[in-house]
């Protein structure tokens, strides 16, 4: 079939899926943080607050779009959409799965297959600063400007160790194409250790450095100084309301998804399962089947009255998913997606977990960590990896 048509179909599936995911990450985040803090979290809009993201979207859409006096109108308007654009475009080079055959069409799971995939991500990460910097500057507000300044300095500083940490796995796979990087991580060593860069490439240090930088790049706790609410009101988006605020919000969560996907592709073996394929093909069904059984059990013995009706419905959905993974044809394709999205989901959960646990750094500490700790460690890791690759490469 026509390449253009296939690409359009893939875009039509991936783009709405990404936007829906962004909305529901917020729900998951509120739920997880609530449970860490022994609260219930969103509960009243829909069963277990599942319709909360839709309610939030309606609220933000219908809110008054307030523009304060003295702002630079063009940049004030452009900044949130620039930020969102640079965040969303990153999904284009993420490889979601191998080349598969769907209804007789050979295609790879993922949008673009770029030779410079990782550089594209790094370029977009660099450009992402403009959204925040312009927002802070054009708002005509000193707190917003301070937040933007902090963000620009922070993102430039953390891009360096991040790029150095990312260079090490690239050395081992000898390519900048994310799909090829994932392909080199296939298989198992000794029959049970997955051949991921994290394990057999000894990239544990690089992975930790990358994840710390990822937190800083996405302005998340413990590095969320650009929007530190007890110092800067709300930082760079103090003066934004309605959909413009929502755009910043979505950009932040989209950046989270992108950095987690890059970590998955470079360190965690992309769509390759953690257990040998003979077992791996049944894992999704087992997970969803177990979830279904658990939901049915709790539906029988409800903790709250409404659970008697909502839990069996969720259980049926989970059971349906479990059956879907066993179907011939569509099952193996979903299996690749399951492993990739499962790893990304775990890393996203880790982001939320950290947010619920850690306090914020001071600004001088933030800069010290980047330049005096992460940078030398990443450099050392790169040098050792290069030495290892020269000594042991076939």
């Amino acid at each position, binding site marked *: 079939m026509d390449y253009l048509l296939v690409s359009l179909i893939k875009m039509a599936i991936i783009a709405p899926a990404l936007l829906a995911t962004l909305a529901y990450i917020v729900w998951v985040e509120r739920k997880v943080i609530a449970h860490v803090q022994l609260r219930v979290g969103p509960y009243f809009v829909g069963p277990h607050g599942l319709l909360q993201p839709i309610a939030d979207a309606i609220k933000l859409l219908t809110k008054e779009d307030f523009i304060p006096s003295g702002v630079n109108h063009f940049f004030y308007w452009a900044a949130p959409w620039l930020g969102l654009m640079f965040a969303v475009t990153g999904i284009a080079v993420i490889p979601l799965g191998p080349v598969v055959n769907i209804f007789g069409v050979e295609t790879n799971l993922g949008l673009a297959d770029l030779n*410079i995939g990782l550089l594209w991500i790094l370029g977009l990460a660099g450009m992402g600063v403009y959204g925040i910097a312009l927002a802070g500057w054009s708002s005509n507000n000193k707190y917003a400007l301070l937040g933007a300044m902090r963000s620009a300095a922070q993102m430039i500083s953390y891009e360096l160790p991040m790029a150095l940490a990312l260079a090490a796995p690239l050395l081992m796979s000898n390519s900048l194409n994310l799909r090829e990087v994932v392909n080199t991580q296939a298989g198992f060593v000794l029959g049970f250790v997955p051949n991921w860069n994290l394990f057999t490439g000894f990239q544990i240090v690089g992975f930790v450095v990358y994840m710390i930088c990822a937190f800083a790049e996405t302005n998340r706790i413990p590095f969320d100084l650009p929007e530190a609410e007890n110092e800067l009101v709300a930082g760079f988006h103090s003066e934004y309301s309605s959909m413009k605020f929502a755009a910043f919000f979505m950009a932040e969560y989209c950046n989270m998804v992108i950095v987690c996907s890059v970590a998955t592709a470079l360190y965690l073996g992309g769509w390759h399962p953690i257990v040998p394929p003979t077992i791996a093909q049944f894992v999704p069904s087992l997970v969803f089947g177990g979830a279904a059984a658990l939901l049915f059990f709790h539906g029988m013995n409800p903790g709250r009255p409404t659970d008697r009706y909502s839990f069996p419905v969720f259980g049926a959905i989970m059971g349906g998913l479990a059956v879907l993974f066993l179907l011939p044809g569509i099952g193996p394709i979903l299996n690749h997606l399951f492993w990739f999205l499962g790893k990304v989901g775990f890393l996203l959960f880790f982001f939320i977990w950290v947010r619920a646990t850690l306090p914020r750094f001071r600004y001088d500490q933030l800069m010290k960590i980047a330049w005096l700790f992460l940078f030398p460690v990443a450099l050392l890791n790169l040098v050792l990896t290069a030495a290892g690759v020269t000594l042991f490469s076939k």
Partner: protein
Amino acid sequence: MDLVLFLTFALIAVACGLNMALQRHPVSSALSLIGVMVSLAVLYVLLGAEFIAAAQLVVYSGAIMVLFLFVIMLLNAGAEKLTKKAGTAHFLGLPLLLILLGLSSWVITTATSHAKPVKFGAFTAGGPREVGWELFTHYVLPFEVTSILILIAIAGAYRLANKEMD
């Protein structure tokens, strides 16, 4: 398709370049310059130099221009005012610019023919592998000398910044 893309992004580059010179506010000028750089990156991709395009995006528009913008915002530079003092520039500026443009376009059109593929020194392809190979074999001395030059610049900048502190 290539021609359409080339014309679109060449036009954007020229428009952003003009806008950079015409805008009064330094932030608007800096952003127009970013527009020029991004459209240049697209033109590099069209020439098959994908690594150069990515480097343009990462280094120029991602790092250097962020620093530019950072400094402009930090100094809180406002819009510039027109002065009537530079009389020579006022009268000779436009004719001299036209002469410069005409001369350079004449030199370019006479010195190069259309049939030859784009080549730059020993670089024959623009992928990361080819660029890296040439950089570390054919051009290894200039490459290392440049990095030492940058190191000297960093040391100098550090010395100057330290002096200010005392």
